């Protein structure tokens, strides 16, 4: 795998993860301020833009690599989102959640490798 491919995989993964964090923030914000305000709309638009960016990066990668090769990285997204939600959104990360998340990620990797 070339450096460029690795970079694109990481970029696609990170843009997807950041999109989820932004969307979560947007929805929390909407709970207090409603849906018709600029801050909410701009965050949702930002989240959608990042998800679209991630989608097209993945589409480009799929033309060069097998799905079974790319899919295990999807398993990583569970771990990264869990860590980011704990550190950036200050959500509570318990030992049980950590083990559960690791099992899900390992399972996704196995499902896509086989």
């Amino acid at each position: 795998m070339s450096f460029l491919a690795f970079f694109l995989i990481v970029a696609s993964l990170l843009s997807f993860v950041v999109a989820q964090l932004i969307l979560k923030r947007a929805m929390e914000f909407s709970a207090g301020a409603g849906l018709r305000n600029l801050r909410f709309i701009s965050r949702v638009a930002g989240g959608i833009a990042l998800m679209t960016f991630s989608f097209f990066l993945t589409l480009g990668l799929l033309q060069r690599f097998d799905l079974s090769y790319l899919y295990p990285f999807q398993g990583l997204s569970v771990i990264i989102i869990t860590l980011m939600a704990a550190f950036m959104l200050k959500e509570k990360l318990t030992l049980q959640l950590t083990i559960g998340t690791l099992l899900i990620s390992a399972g996704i990797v196995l499902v896509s490798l086989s």
Partner: protein
Amino acid sequence: MQDRPSGFGNPWLQLALSVVCVLVSELLLKRGATDIADPSSAWSWTGVNGLASPLVWWAILLIVASFISWLYVLRYIPLIIAFPLSRVVDILVPIGCWIFLNEFISTLRWCGIALVVAGLALVAKPVARIEERL
């Protein structure tokens, strides 16, 4: 997770709906793409020719629906719980392929599915306890 609506507005129901929409959309995309597959066409590598299949349009509709449900879920459920749970789709898709598209599941893949189920149970357990207390 306070002031959670019940009935159709229940965020756990919406999470399930979002997952089901993604599952059905994946199966429809596969069927739709297979139906009109034309590897000789110059456009085929972009996937744009897939839009000729009505099944693909149904899939797109379901993807939009799942996204709206997901946004709703994010309003009420912490991302740290909702996101791992939403990955149940990663095992439902191969099981769906096995049942509806007659695809083969290897032993190793069944092992992966078992791991995901165990992980989901661990993530969902504290949630069940929170729900019981309410």
